[in-house]
Every structure is written in C-alpha cells, then in structure tokens.
C-alpha cells in the first residue's frame, strides 16, 4: 500500500533520530521541567517554553524538539494534580477532571483518582500518536473540510453538554450557561470593536476576562473557602484509602471508554481554532452518556476521570496537525513551539505543508513519537509520585489554604499582570461561592464562558460568508451551511441534548444540596436577572450598523431573562422544600462549619487588599504570618517557619520563570529591590 510505503521508512528514520541517549536525556529534562511547571495552576506550557526559548538558537534540531515536546506533552498530565487534589482546574484541559476527581480526593481516594487519570493520559497520548502517524498524511483535506459552519456546530455540541451538567433544575443550568456566555462577551467585540459592559476608562474590562481567572474564581476559590471553614483535611477520613494500583485497575475496566475518548481528543484537537477548550467537556458528556448507572457522577465516578483525561493528552497530539502542516498554532504553547522550531539547527525548519514532504517526514514523526514517549516518561513519574503527593489531602487544610491563596493569586496575576486581575479573581470567587451555594451549575457557567467567543465569532462569520454564498445561488449557500459534517454534528448534538436532559436530574455536579428558606435563592435570582437585563440594554445601545457586535449578547441575555422569569414563577408557586430552593447554608457541611463564610473570605480579601498596598511579597509575608498564628493557631516560631518557606518557594519559582509579582501602591512610590518591587 502506498501509505504504508511512505510511512514505514520515515518512521524507521524517526526512531533512529529519537532513540539516542542525548535526545532521550533532553526529553527527560523537558518532562521533569514540564511536570514542575504544570503543577502550578495557570502557568502551563507557555511559561515553560518561554523559559527554554533562549537556548533554542542553533541547538541540534532533534534535541531541541525533545526538550520542548517533553515539556508540552506533560503539562496536561501534571495539572491533574491540582484538579484532583485541590479542585483547582490547572488549565482548560483539566476542567472536567475536577468534577469527579476532587470528590474522590475528598473521600480519601486521591491516589486512586490520580492513578486512573495518569493511566488514561498515558493511553490517550499513545492512541493519539498512533492515530496521527497515519492520519497526518491525509489530514490536510480533512482539516480543510472543517469550515466555519462545521466549527460553529462543534462549538454548539460543546455547549450542548450543558444539558448533562445542568443539575436538578435544567432551567437553572441553562441560566448559568447563559451567564457564562454573557460574561464571556464583556469587553471589546471581535467583529466591530464595540464595547460591551465595559468602557475605555477601565481598560481592564475592555480586554475581557481571562479563562485562568474565571476558572480559578469559579472552581478553586469556593472550594478552598468551603474547606477552610470546616477546618479539617481534604480527605474526610484524613487518611488514604485505595492506592494507585486501584486506579490503574479502574482504567483497565474502562479501557474502551478510554479508546473512544482518546479518538475524540485527537479529532477535535486536529481542528484549528477550537483547541482544547471543548474536548474535555465532550469527553465528559460521552462518559456520562455511555454509563449505565449515572448516579455517581459529580460525586466521584471514576469514569468521569478516565474520559476527559484520555482525551486531553490525545488532544495535544491532534493539535500538532494544524501547527505542523498549516503553520497555525492550535494553542498558545503551540505558538511558542512554532516560533522555537524556527530557531533550531540551521534555522531551515519551518512548520508548514513541507513538514509532510519526504524530506521532513522523519522530523514530523519524531515530534509525534517524542510526544508519545514523553507521555510514557511523564506518566511513570507521576504515578510514582502520586502516592506521596496524595498525602497532601490528609494534612489539616488550614495549613494548606494560605499557600493555595498564594498560588492562585500569583497564577491569576500572570494572566494580565494587572492588579485588577486580583480584584477579578475575588469577584469571580464570590460569584462561584454563590453559584455553588444555590446549586447553579458551575460547570455550565464555565462551558458558557469558554465557548462564548467561539460561538459568537463563528456564528457571525458563518452568517456573513453564507450570505455571499447565497448570492451565488440558493444551492451553493445551502451546500455551504449544511455539509455532510455539519449534518452529522447536528444529529449528534440533538441526541446529546435529548439524552442529557433526561439524565441531568440524576447527575448532581454540585453534590447533594438541601433546601432552605425562599428568601436567599430568590435574592440571588433577582441579582442575576438584573445583570441580564442591564447586559441586554447595554448591547442594545450599540450602533445598528455594528449589528454583529450586539446580536449575540442581546440574544443570549434575552433567552436568559426568559429562563429567569420562568424560574421566578416556579419559585413563587412551589413550597420551600422544593429543590429549586437549594441552599447550602441551610444545612449540611457548610451550615455546620466551624467558621462563617464572610470571616473566612475576609482572609483572602485581606491578602488582596494588602497586596494592592505593599505589593505581593510583603503582603504575603504579613498574611502568612498572621494567618498561621491567628487562624491556624500555630506558635509565632512555627508561623515564621511556614512563612519563610512559602516566600522562598514563591521567589524561587518566580525567579526561575522570570515572572513579576503584583506591585502595590508602595512600589509605585519607592523603587525597591527584587523581589519586593
């Protein structure tokens, strides 16, 4: 066969290139660096790649590739630590892992959850590489078949996962997703540059909110605060149950799910412009739909880990296709990777269609299989570490929390290098706390936020291009809009919505929540409705000639206002005991917690306010010391040791990665030496 005749010799050459001690050493180095960086939420591959970029100039091509690929490949593996252990979505690739990974950690099965996740990642990476080896040769026409209508449909398929994650009241889930979508439109519109819910006097808003901050605010802050209030360890039993071997067995039992999700991962990853943001949700949705007993999802169902984790490493492989053969980066780290490739060797390697020519096919295959190899090395390291790192979940959480505040503040600041990042983190933290409290689906909100921009852009662009196609003829326009791929995607979406709505009641992505009085949930509903109404009017003020900038926020706000209206009627007609009045503060863990919500949140607020006054490092020193003494009740000496450790770690990390700390008012007046400046 022709395909095999091209593939085999090139593969052979590729392995000859890879399997050299020097290359493998660089690969291992990259993997270790990638793991160290990936554990940090919000930093990810870009930070790591920027770190090695200066060394790439003139470096031997394959060694340089090994170093970079090693790093990129393991970031979606190692950010699982944060997702599972702390409930912090380390990157957009591991959002769905939080849903079931964190509940498992709370049950004391962190090691099992981690091992299942890593094994799935490894497998996903390998399936991805194998698939790519053949697919990459025929990928070009297939990728070109994905036009704007097809991409819009995939985005909608991603959004349809809201149906599954909506919770017990589908309308609440829909409204939460609507809120995410509308918040995603804040800032300058892509099409005409109109401002939505923003002003040029607040340039921070004009840029829109970054996923890192929204993800950390919506998922991490509420969890950290909730745990901190209870003053216990993450694992309820304070000890570790099932070990890593159980996790590997879990994966083996679900190997076919893993295969399917890996393939989903590669295929969605291949489409440029979508990247990783939808993959894990689609995989999660698929896992739910193919599971008979759905009652455990959101409470620690291992299939909810195997699915997304299989897909997110496979996606990295898929992402190589647009990067390598079209020269269009699928993600930020792929963009840096592309830039760095040009620095390697004699500088004659340029990503683009020539990567598939006979001259470069061996290099292309080297990249694909370095990726697979890096997955193997990374997974083995991670599984080896998981037992030890999982012990974090048995530590008294009060000792852990201030460091988590430190990490998420630092991560949030890296996204925009602006003090407003910290304010935004706090703001989204508050929204997250209330969404969690009243059982409004946080995953639905996040899906809405992530897909807001693609949904709006693809819809506008597809509409405009279709308009021109219809001018050429009705059949041309219809053929453009409803190609075979689009039709298949429409069917899949409809099926997934119908199934999803039927199953949503069973899946409590927020766990079991008791009901309380009517007042608090209703006040929250009013606040949300008010935001939708303001957003609707704000968008309606945009000039009619820039209809592309106003139609999306108006449409979504309008639908959401209707949802809220129906919810309101339903609230008025139902008694207090109805699930619609879910309120965590009425009874259960939160209500019985040792500390109140506001005093606990005030600690975090205290850190941020202090930071805006005296800068990050000084604020952190004061905060850690006082927190450890007053809240954790340690002696001053102990508190000082913890503080010094935290500061030293932070400084080392920032120094190595060449990152800045948030400066405060003090820094704007006095020029202080690093790390205080």
């Amino acid at each position: 066969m022709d395909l095999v005749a091209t593939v085999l010799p090139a593969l052979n050459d590729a392995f000859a290139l890879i399997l050299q001690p020097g290359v493998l050493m660089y690969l291992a180095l990259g993997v270790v660096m990638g793991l160290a960086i990936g554990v940090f939420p919000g930093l990810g591959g870009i930070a790591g790649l920027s770190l090695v970029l200066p060394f790439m100039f003139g470096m031997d091509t394959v060694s340089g590739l090994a170093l970079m690929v090693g790093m990129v490949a393991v970031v979606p593996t190692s950010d699982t630590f944060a997702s599972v252990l702390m409930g912090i979505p380390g990157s957009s690739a591991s959002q769905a892992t939080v849903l079931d990974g964190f509940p498992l950690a709370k049950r004391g099965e962190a090691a099992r959850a981690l091992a299942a996740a890593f094994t799935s990642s490894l497998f996903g990476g390998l399936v991805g590489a194998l698939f790519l080896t053949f697919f990459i040769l025929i990928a070009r026409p297939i990728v070109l078949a994905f036009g704007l209508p097809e991409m819009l449909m995939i985005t909608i398929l991603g959004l349809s996962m809201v149906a599954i994650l909506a919770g017990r009241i589908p309308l609440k889930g829909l409204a939460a997703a609507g809120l995410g979508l509308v918040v995603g439109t804040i800032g300058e519109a892509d099409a005409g540059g109109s401002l939505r819910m923003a002003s040029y006097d607040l340039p921070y808003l004009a840029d829109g909110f970054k996923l890192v901050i929204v993800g950390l605010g919506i998922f991490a802050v509420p969890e950290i605060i909730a745990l901190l209030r209870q003053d216990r360890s993450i694992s309820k039993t304070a000890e570790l149950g099932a070990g890593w071997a159980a996790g590997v067995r879990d994966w083996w039992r679900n190997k076919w799910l893993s295969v399917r999700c890996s393939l989903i991962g590669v295929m969605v990853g291949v489409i440029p412009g979508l990247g990783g943001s939808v993959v894990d949700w689609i995989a999660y949705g698929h896992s739910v739909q193919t599971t008979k007993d759905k009652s455990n999802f959101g409470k620690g169902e291992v299939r909810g880990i195997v699915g997304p984790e299989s897909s997110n490493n496979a996606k990295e492989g898929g992402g190589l296709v647009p990067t390598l053969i079209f020269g269009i980066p699928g993600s930020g780290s792929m963009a840096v990777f592309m830039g760095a490739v040009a620095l390697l060797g004699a500088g004659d390697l340029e990503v683009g269609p020539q990567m598939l020519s006979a001259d470069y096919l061996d290099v292309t295959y080297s990249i694909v299989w370095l990726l697979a190899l890096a997955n193997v090395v990374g997974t083995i390291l991670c599984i080896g570490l998981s037992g030890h790192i999982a012990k974090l979940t048995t530590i008294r959480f009060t000792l852990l929390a201030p460091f988590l505040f430190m990490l998420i503040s630092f991560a949030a600041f890296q996204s925009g290098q602006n003090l407003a990042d910290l304010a935004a983190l706090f703001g989204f933290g508050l929204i997250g706390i209330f969404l969690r409290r009243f059982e409004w689906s946080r995953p639905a909100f996040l899906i809405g936020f992530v897909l807001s921009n693609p949904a709006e852009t693809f819809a506008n662009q597809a509409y405009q291009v279709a308009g021109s196609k219809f001018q050429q003829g009705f059949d041309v326009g219809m053929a453009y809009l409803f190609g075979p791929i689009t039709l298949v995607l429409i069917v899949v979406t409809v099926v997934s919505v119908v199934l999803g709505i039927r199953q949503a009641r069973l899946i409590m992505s927020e766990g079991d929540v008791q009901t309380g009085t009517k007042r608090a949930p209703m006040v929250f509903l009013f606040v949300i409705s008010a935001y939708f109404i303001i957003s609707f009017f704000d968008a309606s003020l945009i000039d009619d000639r820039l209809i592309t900038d106003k139609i999306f926020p108006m449409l979504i706000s309008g639908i959401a206002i209707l949802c809220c209206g129906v919810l309101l009627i339903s609230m008025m007609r139902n008694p207090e005991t109805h699930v619609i009045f879910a309120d965590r503060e009425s009874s259960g863990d939160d209500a019985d917690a040792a500390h109140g919500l506001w005093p606990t949140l005030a600690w975090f607020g205290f850190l941020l306010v202090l930071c805006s006054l005296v800068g990050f490092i000084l604020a952190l020193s004061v905060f850690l010391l006082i927190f450890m003494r007053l809240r954790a009740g340690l002696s001053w000496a102990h508190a000082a040791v913890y503080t010094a450790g935290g500061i030293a770690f932070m400084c080392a990390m920032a120094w190595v990665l060449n990152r800045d700390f948030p400066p405060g008012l003090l820094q704007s007046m006095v020029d202080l030496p690093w790390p205080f400046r």
Partner: protein
Amino acid sequence: MSLFKVSIRRMTLGLAAAAMTLAHAQTAAAVNLEGKTVTWTIPFSEKGGSAKWANFFAPLLSEALPGKPTVVVKFMPGAGSTKGANWFQRQRKGDGTVMFGSSGSTQFPYLLGDPRVRYEYKDWNPVMATGTGGVAYLPPDLAKKFDGSANNLKDVNFIYGSQGATRLDLVPLLAWKMLGLNVKPVFGIKGRGDGRLMFERGEANIDYQTTSGYLKGVASLVKAGKAVPMMTWGSLIDGKIVRDPTFPEVPTFKEVCEKTDGCETSGKAWDAWKAFFTAGFPVQKIAFLPQGTPQEVIDTFTKAFDKVKARPDFAQLSSKRLGKYPMFVGKDAKAALDQATSVPETAKAFVVQWLNDEYGVKLKK
C-alpha cells in the same frame, strides 16, 4: 533617504568595522551589562509576528551587547497592543535593562487617535527598526480575470477574513476599495494565518499576507496552483513606491491602480493609502529604549545592533525569517520612526471618515 544611508554604510563597512571595535571597547567600559537581564517587552501575545521578530533578534542582541547580558522577551498583550505601549510610556529605567518593541498595529491606533492611546512615540528612543512587505493573492479562477488591472474583477463578490478595519488590514481594505473591488471583510479572525486558512477552504476568495507569512504559507499554494499573487504593496525608496525586492516579478498596487479605471495615484485617497502603508509596512517594527535613557546607553544598543547587522550570516538568517528588507539602526531608525509616525492630518481625517462610513467604526468618543 534612509535607504541611501544604509547603502553608504554598507560600502564603508570595512572601515567602520575597525572604528566600531574601537568605539565598542570604549563604551564597554562605560556601559557594561554583564550579569544583567535585558527585558524586551512585546505588546502582543506569543503567537504573533512581533514575537517571532523579537525572538529572532534576542539571542543575537545578547551576544552583541557588552557583557553579554541575558535578553528575555516578555509578552504583554492587551487592548490591541495599546496596553503594553501605555505601560512603556511610564517606564523611566534608562539603564538598558528595559526595551520595547512596537509594530504597525501599535502605530495605527496612535495615528488614528484611538481613545485608548496614552503613549507618545516622540518620547521614546528608537534603536532599531525593520520593515516588511505585503502581497495580495487570488484563487486561480479569479486570477484569470486579472490582467494587470482590476477592471474585470469589479463585479465579483469578494470575501476577506480580517482582523479588524483599524489594524494593518486597513491598508489592503483601502487598496481594494480604491480599485473598485467589492470586498466584504469578515471581521474577528485571530491572525493572518486564520485568514489564509479561510482562503484555502474557499470561504474567502481574496487575501493578503505579510512577506514572512506569504513565504511560509502561500508560496507553496502558488506552486501547487491553488493561489496566484495579485499585487504587492511595494517597497519605499526615497519616498517613491517601487517593486518589492522579495517579489520583483509581482506588480505593485500602484501599477495596478494606474491601469485600473477610476483608480488614481494622486488625490486624497491615494495620499491616505500611501501614508498608512508607509506607517505600517516599510517601517513595521521598531525597538525602543524608554524616555530619559542616557545617550551612552542608546549608543551601546545602536552599536550592538550594528554588530548584529554586520554578522556574516545575518543576511542569510534574516532573509529567511524576515524577508529581504532593510534593517535600520541608530539615526536611520530615528528617521524611520519619523517616517512611520508623521501622517498628514488630511490623510488621518480621510481614513477616520472612511472607517466610519464603511464599517461604522467610531474612533473618537
């Protein structure tokens, strides 16, 4: 003007090299960056052309500066690059550890009076500038109708994937408008690479790329018969538009305009196009030191960039990565900056009006 000076510099390179090493040794005593880190801030994300540009120069600059400091490229994207530029406006650290790189997309909002602009180019100290070119291209079936003039293309409905009318895309959009082409821009794409992909998918049927983008992505399409170059924006020599040295066989927009009915190479529209072309392409990217930088630090960087330029392998390295375009250093960079930022008021007014009429873009609030 500046180009002329460059060639003189080239001719006297042998002589200058000796003088330079001498002068270099002297300043090295005064300004030594050993053990320091030079942070080169780029107001865009890691993805764009500016990132590539800075990453290309950073290691070369590091080698050429006295004391071989580490040169780190830092990214500060936001608000169409005005965020980073506003930040740089506030920098006063003139010890050579702070550098900034601006691009055409930073120049345009400045020229158009964008409300977000709080920076002033005249305050900054340019040390190096480079240019680029741009090539417009068509699908083969439409290229058949193109005979050096755009006369037969006027009844075609063109679709163009655009990043936004106030960006560098202003230059092609205005050019096509002047040719009388009916081009409908689909706004909101994330980079010129995405525009090319739309063209390849047949969703767009006209596109342009900067030189490096064209060499990387379109040249292979042309070879495969899937795209045909239409025109370049040209290259600027002594204020006159001539054929682009990287694409000597492709006519310039000026030539096409002259042959096309109703398109004039004089008057308001032409002056405006030329002014914005000049601001966006021949001097596209500029490296700056902050205001208040002492002259000896500026001289040190100027010499370092001269040294980079004098590398025997520089021409080969840069032609592959940046195209065959001049690199301006020191005084020439200053001249280049003046050229890029001095757009006549009438041209500005014309463009602001046209953006408003055609796309509903309001720049002044």
